[in-house]
């Protein structure tokens, strides 16, 4: 997450992007913005810097503003840096009446940060999100592509410890 990161998609990402571009008519390549921004966020530290968005704009032959206006509209795109592990906790009605608020305070207490903040070691960020479509399995949070459901305080402890260990191992390798 250094200020001057080298921005270039990995070869694997480029293969994926050319596959995605084929899904839309040749003169409608702008449609690829959303899927390509998802890949960019994954490739470049979990968030979209202006440099990243400019890079995506060049790649898709668009004006930078066309990418900025999309990136700032959709809540899954982070336009500020986030921790290595982003915990997205659902706080909407059905989750709330099944104990989401207690889970959120428990995560805050455990990590000693508030919603919207990142731990000093850059490991965790807590974000509250609106309904993720898991109402019957509440309370829940999402990390990466994975849903963690039927949460209890004990389960949260276990999951967060495990995620941290996995991340540390990944970094050391």
């Amino acid at each position, binding site marked *: 997450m250094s200020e001057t990161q080298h921005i270039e998609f990995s070869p694997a990402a480029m293969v994926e992007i050319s596959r995605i571009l084929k899904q839309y008519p040749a003169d409608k390549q702008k449609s690829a913005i959303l899927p390509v921004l998802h890949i960019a966020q994954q490739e470049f530290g979990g968030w979209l810097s202006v440099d990243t968005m400019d890079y995506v704009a060049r790649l898709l032959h668009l004006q930078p503003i066309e990418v900025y206006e999309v990136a700032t509209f959709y809540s899954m795109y982070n336009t500020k840096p986030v921790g290595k592990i982003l915990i997205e906790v659902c706080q909407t*009605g059905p989750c709330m009446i099944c104990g989401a608020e207690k889970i959120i305070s428990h995560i805050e207490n455990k990590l000693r940060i508030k919603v919207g903040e990142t731990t000093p070691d850059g490991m965790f960020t807590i974000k509250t999100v609106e309904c993720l479509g898991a109402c019957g*399995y509440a309370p829940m949070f999402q990390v990466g592509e994975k849903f963690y459901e039927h949460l209890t305080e004990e389960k949260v402890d276990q999951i967060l410890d495990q995620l941290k260990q996995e991340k540390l191992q990944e970094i050391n390798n």
Partner: protein
Amino acid sequence: MGRKLLLEHLDKPGIETIDGYIQHGGYRSVEKALKKMTPDEVTEEVKKSGLRGRGGAGFPTGMKWSFLDRSTDKPRYLLCNADESEPGTFKDRLLMEKIPHLLIEGMITSSYALGCRTSYIYIRGEYMFILRILEKAIAEAYAKGYLGEKILGTGYSLDLYVHPGAGAYICGEETALIESLEGKRGNPRIKPPFPAVAGLWNCPTIVNNVETITAVVPIINDGGEEYAKIGIGRSTGTKLISASGNINKPGVYEIDLGVPVEEFIYSDEYCGGIKNNLELKACVPGGSSVPILPKHLLLKMSDGNPRLMTYESLSEGSFATGSMLGSGGFIVYDEKQCIVRNTWNFTRFYHHESCGQCSPCREGTGWMERVLHNLEYGHGKMEDIELLWDIQRKIEGNTICPLGDAAAWPVASAIRHFRHEFEYHAKYPHKVFDADHVYQPEMKMETA
């Protein structure tokens, strides 16, 4: 009861693979439609079935299909709305996650009826893990000749793609979905023109919910008339209900339209009653946007007869005493739940999700959220209740898309049916100051 058209094979091992799916009768509707029926005959069956849009609006699907502009040379598109994000709704996720080929089969059969050469499934970005399941299933379908050029040796060809959103409730609105698929912000368009005339890339387009498209499969297999035999009146067929909240058995249930609400809540076949032996207090029967009903209005209609799980019965009494079937997002509240807190929570949701195009919605949702927050945290005044009523009334009907109405209805219905709780919050701020506060019986007694 207990008949299942969509979820019958849910738990069969290997049903997520094309071989397992075909083993259980999968892709028969494609064979039948492409080899034995004309596109118009497929549409005719869907009309006969009485199928109504399962995303929430309940508009007759066959009629929607018949609006598709077939007079131009432009390509036509079928877009599957898999943006499922109405709070309380999680049925499409189950279908796509567990039986991905059912949706793909429905897309092929429906695209054939509409004359589409390319179709898209627009799935919410948070369901990226399901996008991967669908893409794997689509690759299998191409390999078996159900997608691509000259499907099953017929003259019909179709390409099917999955496109992810990125976290925006509004993209479940069909014109916002189209904008988003074009790579833009999800700002709804002014209608007309309707998508059926000028939709994706200005071409004739039909947008249908996941469950709607999967229902086309049994309709073509067994005939529209068979499908129409299930249910009551204009509510035909089966419906997936996402049950959540304070119940013993949350989950997705496929019901014959027409099951009594009381049976749905208390029967062990469905919700299994209220959790922790508490009393049922209220219910939002069709996703967060539809009016909340207290127990007595939920279980019985104004004539005293039991209320049923149908489009008509749930809306009986209109908004004075009724609600809507909506998306089938059935949220149940026990006696301890605070209605003011729930209303504040929903309003925050709509404020967060407002696209910002129309001032009544952009400003009104934020204003309601702040007023409700004050009430909930013990800083409210009695006049706030009238203020809230006034704001919601000025949002409803004054916006380009239905998000404004969706934000107004929960507030209006909560005040209409639970005014005493709002008054209690204004009158006894110190008693509601604690965020953990639960509904207290004296709330009702104060104003009774």
